């Protein structure tokens, strides 16, 4: 874990209905500056977990500490000022008439002078590269623009922690790549809940796998995202860019190679492009598997032996 603890969750349990626990005995820590992917099938408890970190659900058992401060009703405002939460549905996040007003909403509420509000708005819009949309009406934005505007609305708070719920949902490949670029350029602790494992792979160094309200895995993303057995056991699938296993024979023996497009992954990290998924490498690999050519090395594949 990088730096000191930013988030600490101790024995957290939560249920809407006592008979069906949503989260059970979760213990979790996140350091300053860490980027953590939260993966899990539908109903695993990812969104609920994020909502709890930001105090939208307070009737839980256990303890949540944000920067060492215990999350309680009485200090909710204080804790929330440190956390930015990006909703899955950007339409719920954007409610003012223009992008600029929406981005200025938080700093104004936190009582910053108008000059500081303007500085923060400029900074937030610049970070997500939507300075040109400043005066645009919210309803005229495209899906990708809305997502970036939604991120800008929380960046203007200058949060120490950024929580994102399915940020890549309903984005086209180009907007998805732009978003990866934006997220990789952000500072602070980031927790991203997503089904999009390629997206997690391109943005997060650490991944937590939730299943039926429990943490099943917590460790390096590269490791869990290549663990087909573990993922499938919890109703997930390998990321598209990793999922194609090529079996071909050399010397009469069978070798199973996993197509790992490391170069693409690095490229995606550095430039926010996520080529691994967007350039359809999975399809290439599938094609190669079908024909048994094993051309993966030409593409910089590592050819990890299973």
């Amino acid at each position: 874990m990088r730096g000191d603890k930013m988030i600490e969750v101790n024995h957290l349990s939560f249920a809407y209905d006592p008979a069906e626990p949503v989260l059970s005995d979760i213990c979790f820590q996140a350091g300053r500056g860490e980027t953590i992917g939260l993966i899990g099938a539908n109903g695993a408890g990812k969104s609920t977990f994020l909502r709890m970190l930001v105090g939208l659900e307070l009737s839980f058992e256990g303890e949540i500490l944000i920067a060492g401060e215990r999350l309680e009703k009485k200090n909710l405002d204080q804790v929330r000022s440190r956390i930015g939460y990006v909703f899955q549905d950007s339409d719920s996040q954007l409610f003012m008439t223009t992008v600029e007003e929406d981005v200025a909403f938080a700093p104004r509420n936190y009582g910053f002078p108008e000059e500081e509000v303007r500085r923060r708005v400029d900074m937030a819009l610049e970070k997500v590269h939507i300075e040109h949309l400043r005066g645009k009406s919210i309803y005229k934005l495209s899906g990708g623009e809305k997502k970036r505007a939604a991120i800008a609305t929380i960046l203007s708070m200058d949060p120490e922690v950024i929580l994102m719920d399915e940020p890549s949902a309903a984005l086209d490949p180009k907007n998805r790549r732009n978003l990866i670029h934006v997220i990789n350029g952000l500072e602070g602790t980031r927790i991203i809940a997503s089904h999009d494992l390629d997206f997690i792979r391109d943005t997060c160094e650490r991944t937590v796998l939730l299943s039926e309200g429990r943490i099943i895995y917590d460790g390096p993303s590269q490791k869990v995202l290549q663990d087909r057995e573990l993922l499938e056991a919890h109703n997930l699938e390998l990321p598209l860019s990793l999922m194609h296993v090529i079996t071909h024979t050399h010397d009469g023996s069978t070798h199973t190679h996993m197509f790992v497009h490391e170069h693409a992954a690095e490229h995606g990290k550095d430039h926010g492009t996520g080529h691994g998924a967007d350039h359809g490498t999975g399809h290439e690999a599938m094609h190669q598997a079908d024909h048994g050519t094993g051309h993966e090395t030409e593409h910089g594949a590592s050819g990890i032996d299973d």
Partner: protein
Amino acid sequence: MSKIDHAMHQLHSLESMAKEERWINRLHPSVKLFLTILYVVLTVSFSKYQLAGLLGMVIYPAALFIVAELSLKDALWRLRIVLPLVCIVGAANPFLDRTAAMNLGGIVVSGGVLSMLSLMLKGVLAVLASYLLIATTSIEKICYALRQAHVPKILVTEILLIYRYITVLLSETRRVVTAYSLRAPKQKGIAFAAWGPLAGQMLLRSMDRAERVYQSMCLRGFRGEFCFGGTGAPGRTDVLWLVFWTAMLLVLRFVPVMEIVGGLFV
């Protein structure tokens, strides 16, 4: 474009209009709000037979339409549902008050007709003045001006939230209606039997979405009152505009300007 889409488009175009970079839009919202209230109060204070005096009050909205470069035709089209209702208010007067009030070239005009016309004119002028305010001032700025006028914060927040949730309700309605019509392609409108479930769905979904919007606001420091920024104290232009129109409206109300002008030609 469906009716709902059209309604949303109208709402957003009005918002865009209010945010345009025109001189009149940049005037201090408190000044515009005060003048609008003053105008409405003075307009409705005319007695029911003072039609001539009331005609003088047309000057203010006419001037604003010119200065703001707004289209009267467009305004009347937008207000096409409200204006007939306003006009209906005095419709019964000609039957209730038949006393002769004036003689126009041999035609006797009853008090009822006069009062009906003045009521209609009052209504139309008041609605037009309100329209001019919202077409040149964003809802946030109007609410800011209301807070400056010490209107209780709960009331101002209610106004803003209702305004915000109109869009939420409309967009949820659009989704529900679209989903329905796609599965009932040959049907015109919505079957009576489906009204109940659809209304229930719309209510639940709107509440759900409204809750998320509210949560999003709370997560960004909202504590029950909207904070409005970017509007400083009124400047010299604002004061001049205020003084000029306050004086003008008072003159139009208390000096029989139209009769004096009319007297010049008789």
